[in-house]
């Protein structure tokens, strides 16, 4: 931390929007209070959750969370540091801008019965009915964006998205 020019305070020079958003991979203890502790901390510190996904990790009694958090007016590194203070949190990895596999799942129902445009992008048809077609898609950020644009052209009835889950490419 030596020798680099520092803004003296975070308040004096608010970080740009894209710098404020961090993608964190968080290993946590399973427990009735874990999720509320994490979400409570994020609220209390003035951060904002963009997306959150939780699932079991290979280690028993522990879950892996992928959090996308806007640090608000704080230094973006505060999100990681504050999470690390929680006893329920075992490990926090800030993977923002890192070389990761990032995937988000989208399940959508559209009015159209012809969904070739969606299938061309990689979507799979789950169900076809008289009132519409249900498809699933998974991909990384930009692909999901393209898919959502294409979805709009098919008359969206409803969409469910998982938020991204990430894994480093190299261990």
């Amino acid at each position, binding site marked *: *931390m*030596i020798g680099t020019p*520092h803004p*003296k*305070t975070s308040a004096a020079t608010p970080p740009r929007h894209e710098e404020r958003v961090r993608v964190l991979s968080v290993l946590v*203890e399973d427990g009735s209070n874990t999720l509320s502790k994490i979400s*409570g901390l994020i609220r209390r510190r003035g951060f904002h959750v963009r997306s959150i996904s939780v699932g079991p990790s290979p280690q028993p009694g522990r879950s892996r969370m992928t959090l996308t958090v806007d640090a608000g007016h704080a230094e973006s590194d505060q999100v990681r540091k504050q999470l*690390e203070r929680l*006893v329920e*949190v075992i490990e926090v990895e800030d993977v923002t801008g890192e070389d990761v596999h990032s995937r988000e799942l989208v399940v959508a129902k559209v009015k159209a019965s012809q969904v070739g445009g969606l299938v061309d992008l990689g979507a799979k048809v789950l169900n076809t009915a008289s009132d519409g077609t249900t498809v699933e898609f998974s991909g990384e950020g930009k692909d999901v964006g393209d898919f959502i644009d294409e979805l709009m052209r098919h008359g969206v009835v409803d969409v469910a998205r998982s938020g991204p889950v990430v894994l480093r490419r190299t261990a």
Partner: protein
Amino acid sequence: MILEALEREGVEYIFGYPGGANLPIYQHLPEHPRLKHILVRHEQGAAHMADGYARACGKPGVVFATSGPGALNLVTGLCTAYMDSVPMIAITGQVNSTQVGRDAFQESDVIGATSSVTKHSYLVTSIDQLPRVIHEAFHIATTGRPGPVLIDICKDVQQANAERVTPDRLEIPGYQPNGHVNLEHAHEAARALAGAERPVILAGHGVLLSHAERELFKFAEKAAAPVGTTLLGIGAFPVNHPLSLHMTGFMGTGWNLKAVQNADVLMMVGMRVDDRVTARLADFAPNVKTFIHVDIDGSEMGKNVRPHIELVADARNALEAMTPHVGEVDAGRGQWLAQIDAWREEHPLKYTHSNGHLQPQDVLIDMYRRCRSEAIVVADVGQNQIWTALWWNYDRPGTFINSGGAGTMGFALPAAIGAKFGRPDKAVWCVAGEGGFVMTAQELSVAVEHNLDIKIVILNNFSLGMVRQFQDDFYGGVRSQVDMTHIPDFVKLADAYGLPGIRVDSLEQVGAAMDAAEKTKGPFLIDFRIDPEANVYPIVPLGKSLNDFWEAPDK
């Protein structure tokens, strides 16, 4: 089982209040005479007593409360301890595990209500968890950056029997109190400070919590660097020392603020650098080229001020690591220290004492002459707090106890009671305004019941003085809801609670009243009727920079 575990953790005092959901614990309390239970009059009082106890003797304070309102009454006290990093264990009763979530009588989500004001918390729904949880709780509360830990125990668990299992080791993978220590830059930090033209060290509560005052003294003398303290850092460096800058912050001394605002290297040790220290953040220490921050909690780095050099470690380890690297002190140091002396002459602490009213500073100066450094002074919050912080030559740790971060009115009396239990060998003085005092005055019963030798000094101006001062100066001069004209006659109140009290209206009466207080073994109350217009100075107007401090007007 709970009580045995507490004995094993070395607990001596418990401050508590029984109720429906912790009756099983209380049923077995008489079987454990080594655990001395202090029955409080309100649960908030229990939390502040445990807090004062912990701050005075260093051991974690222990609190019992029942479910629902009992536990929720602890919240302010937990927050007070959390903000000031005080080790505490709160054990609350919860409804039966089978009733949780059914809105049972006196059920409340205590974990949810206290999560943001505790270092950690546990809901115990099975007896198997209990030994591990209690052992972990004490470990977490007392290590690293200390703090309160709450254990919410369902009533059926309190009644359950199990074989006594002492956990032989702790496994808390998410808790590494010293896991992030980084002293890599100790050498650079020491050299940056010693080689600076205009260095300043600010010391916070972390110096006291890690017992680093000797190391701070050595380091400061070797580097010939002036030292100021935060409000909670009071006692970390002797106020009478030539290098002392006394208290910093928006009600700090003029020479301290001048030094901070002109410093080129600022080392902040064991402190959070909060808004009361920085005033307007953008103008804080504007001439500093190198900020050095030392704290055990890595999340403090850059939370408010981004340091150029950071040392994540407890203050003692960090200062020990830095001292050998101090090396040669900058040749211009004599000039800088002479400049600070000049500021000290130019901006002394002063107060009005010619308008015929009793001045609060007169009371405190008389107290100081009697106690010197032998007493523990517990101050409340408001004007009384800043007067007590500034008008006393604190020269060692453990002499000043106060709610700094949370600023909890009503803290002083119960905290003084707790401090006396923690340090029965020390004289304990409680200083409060009339506003804060009436918030927790019911705890006088505890002082009388245990014949605690504490002296209660009420600086009574019949007004919420700090709020009044702010309204006068920063809110258009509109005095709104600050008159405390309807408060009890404190001498009669003392009599009703069963302790002696005296009222003092003038400077001439101060000495005799203090004599009477000192001669009395047991609690004693003095109602000092002070100048209703007395103000705190210096003060930085709200929203302004530290440069803009106002001094006491000359009269």
